[in-house]
């Protein structure tokens, strides 16, 4: 056991069982999966991406590149989870990934022997020939060999949520700088959100043997957090990663609500927050960076800061004979902290020759680690001492300290390039890179605790002043203020063996040299050629080392070489969390008309129309083909009476003294001449001359109209009318509002429709009382409604409208009455057949590419007024008589099918692109005419009536000889609908 006898922010009284690769272990509350495994002497935690090298933990935080695991079972299995951040709940199941058959014996470790062939850009060079093998052979093999965890392949049942929050100040990170900033701002009355990715707040204070105001760092942090939690104007969000910085003071945040709980009991697992803040303070700390030396990736080799975290925060020592390799004074502190915790340190190796470390252990200055050995973990080190001699050290754990990089990632999210600061040999955030965000403490390169506290205080005071809040005079707590002493040392050169830079993507120093030799020298080229920094950790640990090596190779300074920038998210975010609420029906909500339940009782067959659901047909016998129902419903409307829900059509109420003038300008035909009590069919164009929509306009009184739109275009037409009213002609007195949801409306169509409605309404609805294209007020059971005499079927027909809440009752009544007369309900399929038989339009014809002339509607373009689209519709290309024009199509002889989308080709011509004469927009079987019919667009079609043409469907292998006919198949004179 490697659990120390004392110390750590863990509850030793409670033990929670969990498994890793089937083996049972236990953890204490406060442990991470990584600390619990280390406490039980598990060092091997993963296999690397490409070479399948055995790997252990390198860090103690979210920057971990190695210890990635699959957590959970079945659909809930989550790959690539960092063992260094995952808390252990009772019964947690963890599995290693990217290894077969097991973590200890991984067959693909053979890749490591093939490493000379698998370096940077290997697939560009090695798998060139034969060309066809790439897609079928090489790539599948490479894809299978490479990679990280596996997805479950099952639908994600995890409950995610999204939420919004607003504040004056967002403090990112709850280390000494963040706690100080939040506390000062809160005391000044600012509304503060303090977010930290960790589950215990305090940042490095929990990991270091340090003092603030004479208390331990751990207890100062705990007290500060408790104080903040008690303040009503502060929201403390633990387990919350600020994932991205966006425009307008918006930040993305992922709160892991229940990832650490065995039974969430209905709580969402994760919440994706959008936090909008006036000011932000970036107190995200810093990441320690490794030093590259041969075989620096063995389990047991980790960052010095991580080692201190395991010892101080978790009471675990990952080794019993520890060596420390450093280029800065932080390494000395590691030795002292470890010894204070009773852990044996057997060597301090400092790359700097001139220093005199103040530690009590064997010291090698001017020395470097040149190799490591050990099976599945480090057992020995080789040092090259200052005099050039080699020495073996039998260390079972090596702490590496290469200096610190500010965790400046968020500052790059809007394109800001970090700036180089020579005295700490690191990049710092560019001031102003994110508007209203300021970086403090270690995130801004000020690494001492004193500097963190002081920075945080100053930044918070400045926020209070900016926002005009109360000024406070806080006292700065006392803390250490050690100056930075670092001599940059990035990698051990001139020794044999591969030295790792990017542990997650398996990129070595040699790969950077290859990129340089092959002239991929710009940082952006180097990154993509070697894949350095392109793994899920975005190169948090590796970027700096690679830049330094490229600088060395090109003879430039690091700032001259430059740096790539970081993009959101800071750490990986589940797609499910980003898309919370947007899966399934959340992506496409359902709209139901008032009589939906009634219709759903009658038929399970619904068609989506936009977000609406409309009945397709009403089967009388489940065994029947849909066409049987459709034909029956069509015949019913043509011979007796049918009822169809048309509530989903857009209905827009237009009022105002200038309403008629306004409608004259948006429709092509004249509306102002329409008399109250009358209805007119009308056409609307886009400003570029193409048809936008059609519908009816009913004039209720002089200054009050109700217009209809097609179901699909209702939203677009409303926005268009609002644009015209507000942006073009603000001087007109006109008000526009959608009333689609206020009215339930039903078509009653067929020769018996008048009899049905006259009896229902007990009113005179004769042709004299309500002629074709007229409307009237009605009262039904005391409820006021409207009756329109309009027809989309070509039969005598009405549409009856009542307030939406009476829709269900009305439709039941209409159905019962229709049935008694030998009629009944009809659905969208029959509605479509009825309108094709009449040559009426839908958006299958008005598809955004047609002008009025194509539809044979030039006559509707009024010459007496201006209207939207008038000028553009007269462009030469749009009035060309050889444009594709709407015609009817009937097959000659016996045919299988005529299908929408078929191309029209002349008799004898090849069915090739250059011979295409047009296409079928709508087709159906017409029970009225006893055969297939279609509407089609054909070049110069109206001059070709009577000519023969072929309808060809290359996909479904149809080639049908047809005749071009007028587009009105049924009752072209319109006697029936006027009857």
């Amino acid at each position, binding site marked *: 056991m490697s659990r120390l006898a004392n110390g750590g922010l863990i509850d030793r009284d409670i033990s929670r069982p969990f498994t890793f690769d089937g083996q049972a272990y236990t953890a204490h509350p406060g442990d991470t999966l990584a600390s619990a495994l280390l406490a039980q002497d598990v060092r091997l935690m993963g296999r690397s991406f490409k070479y399948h090298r055995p790997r252990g933990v390198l860090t103690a935080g979210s920057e971990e590149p190695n210890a990635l695991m699959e957590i959970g079972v079945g659909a809930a299995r989550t790959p690539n989870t960092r063992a260094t951040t995952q808390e252990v709940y009772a019964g947690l199941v963890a599995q290693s990934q990217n290894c077969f058959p097991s973590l200890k014996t991984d067959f693909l470790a053979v890749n490591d022997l093939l490493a000379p062939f698998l370096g940077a850009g290997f697939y560009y060079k090695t798998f060139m020939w034969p060309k066809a093998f790439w897609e079928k052979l090489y790539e599948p093999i490479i894809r299978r060999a490479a990679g990280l965890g596996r997805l479950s392949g099952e639908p994600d049942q995890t409950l995610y949520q999204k939420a*919004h929050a607003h504040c004056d100040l967002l403090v990112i990170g709850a280390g000494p700088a963040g706690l100080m900033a939040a506390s000062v701002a809160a005391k000044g009355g600012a509304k503060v959100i303090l977010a930290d990715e960790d589950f215990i707040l305090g940042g490095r204070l929990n990991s270091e043997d340090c003092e603030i105001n004479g208390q331990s760092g751990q207890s100062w942090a705990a007290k500060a957090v408790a104080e903040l939690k008690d303040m009503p104007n502060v929201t403390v969000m633990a387990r919350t990663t600020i994932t991205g910085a*966006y*425009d*307008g*003071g*918006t930040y993305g945040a992922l709160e892991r609500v229940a990832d650490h709980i065995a039974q969430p009991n209905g709580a969402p697992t994760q919440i994706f927050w*959008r936090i*909008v803040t006036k000011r932000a303070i970036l107190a995200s700390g810093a990441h320690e960076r490794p030093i590259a030396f041969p075989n620096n990736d063995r389990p047991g080799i980790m960052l010095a800061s991580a080692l201190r975290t395991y010892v101080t925060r978790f009471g675990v020592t990952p080794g019993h004979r520890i060596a420390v390799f450093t280029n800065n004074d932080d390494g000395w502190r590691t030795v002292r902290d470890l010894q204070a915790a009773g852990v044996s340190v057997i060597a301090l190796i400092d790359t700097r020759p001139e220093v005199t470390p103040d530690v009590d252990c064997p010291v090698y200055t001017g020395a470097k680690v040149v190799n490591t050995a050990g099976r599945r973990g480090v057992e020995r080190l080789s040092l090259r001492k200052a005099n050039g001699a080699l020495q073996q050290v039998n260390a079972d754990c090596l702490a590496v300290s290469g200096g610190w990089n500010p965790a400046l990632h968020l500052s790059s999210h809007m394109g800001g390039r970090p700036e180089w600061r020579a005295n700490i040999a690191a990049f710092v955030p560019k001031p102003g890179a994110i*508007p209203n965000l300021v970086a403090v403490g270690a995130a801004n390169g000020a690494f001492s605790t004193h500097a963190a506290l002081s920075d945080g205080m100053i930044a918070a005071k400045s926020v209070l002043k900016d926002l005009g809040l109360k000024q406070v005079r806080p006292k700065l707590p006392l803390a250490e203020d050690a100056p930075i002493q670092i001599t940059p040392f990035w990698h051990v050169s001139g020794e044999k063996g591969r030295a790792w830079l990017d542990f997650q993507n398996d990129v070595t120093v040699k790969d950077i040299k290859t990129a340089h030799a092959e002239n991929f020298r710009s940082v952006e080229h180097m990154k993509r050629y070697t894949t350095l920094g392109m793994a899920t950790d975005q190169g948090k640990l590796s970027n700096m080392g690679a830049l330094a090596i490229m600088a060395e190779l090109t003879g430039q300074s690091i700032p001259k070489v430059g740096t790539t920038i970081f993009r959101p998210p800071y750490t990986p975010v589940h797609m499910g969390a980003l898309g919370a609420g947007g899966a399934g029906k959340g992506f496409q909500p359902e709209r139901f008309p008032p009589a939906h339940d009634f219709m759903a009782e009658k038929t399970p067959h619904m068609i989506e129309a936009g977000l609406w659901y409309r009945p397709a047909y009403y089967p009388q016998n489940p065994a029947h083909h849909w066409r049987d129902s459709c034909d029956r419903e069509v015949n019913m409307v043509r011979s007796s009476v049918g009822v169809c829900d048309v509530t989903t059509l857009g209905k827009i109420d237009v009022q105002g003294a200038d309403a008629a003038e306004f409608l004259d300008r948006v429709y092509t035909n004249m509306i102002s001449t329409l008399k109250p009590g009358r209805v007119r069919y009308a056409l609307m164009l886009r*400003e*570029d001359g193409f048809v936008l929509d059609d519908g009816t306009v009913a004039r209720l009184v002089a200054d009050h109209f109700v217009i209809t739109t097609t179901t699909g275009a209702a939203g677009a037409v409303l*926005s268009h009318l*609002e*644009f015209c009213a*507000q*942006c*073009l*002609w*603000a*001087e007109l007195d006109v008000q526009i509002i959608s009333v689609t949801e206020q009215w339930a409306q039903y078509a009653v169509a067929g020769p018996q429709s008048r009899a049905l409605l006259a009896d229902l309404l007990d009113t005179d609805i004769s042709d004299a009382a309500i002629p074709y294209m007229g409307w009237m007020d009605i009262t039904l059971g005391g409820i006021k409604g409207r009756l329109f005499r309009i027809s989309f079927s070509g039969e005598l027909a009405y549409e009856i409208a009542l307030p939406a809440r009476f829709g269900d009752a009305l439709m039941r009544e209409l159905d019962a009455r229709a049935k008694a007369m030998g009629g009944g309900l009809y659905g969208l399929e029959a509605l479509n057949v009825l309108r094709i038989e009449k040559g009426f339009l839908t958006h299958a014809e008005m598809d955004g590419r047609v002008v009025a002339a194509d539809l044979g509607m030039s006559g509707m373009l009024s010459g007496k007024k*201006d209207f939207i689209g008038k*000028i*553009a519709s*007269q*462009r030469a290309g749009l009035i060309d008589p050889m444009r594709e024009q709407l015609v009817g199509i009937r097959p000659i002889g016996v045919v299988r099918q005529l299908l929408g989308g078929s191309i029209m080709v002349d008799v004898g011509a090849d069915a090739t692109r250059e011979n295409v004469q047009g296409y079928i927009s709508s087709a159906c079987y017409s029970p009225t005419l006893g055969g297939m019919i279609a509407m089609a667009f054909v070049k110069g079609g109206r001059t070709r009536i009577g000519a023969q043409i072929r309808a060809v469907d290359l996909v479904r292998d149809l080639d049908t000889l047809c005749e071009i006919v007028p587009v009105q198949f049924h009752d072209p004179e319109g006697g029936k609908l006027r009857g």
Partner: protein
Amino acid sequence: MRIPCPHCGERDSREFEYLGSAKLLARPVTGAAEFHDYIHIRENPAGPNAELWQHIFGCRAWLHVVRDTVTHEVQTVTLAREKAGVNP
């Protein structure tokens, strides 16, 4: 991105729908060439750009928004009604 709607206050950009250049406010009276320019010809400035947005999930007002295309900073927001017919 945040847009301060004159009616509703500052709101997330997802409540709004973008149309395009505020040039659309100045519809020509006549002329094929004028309409060609009005419909098709657009500046593509790197910097402040006058645009039309509609607050579709709010008050449905059309807004004249001056937005910096480089920084996404929203500089001014006016009801389009107040600028109707004005060429920006």
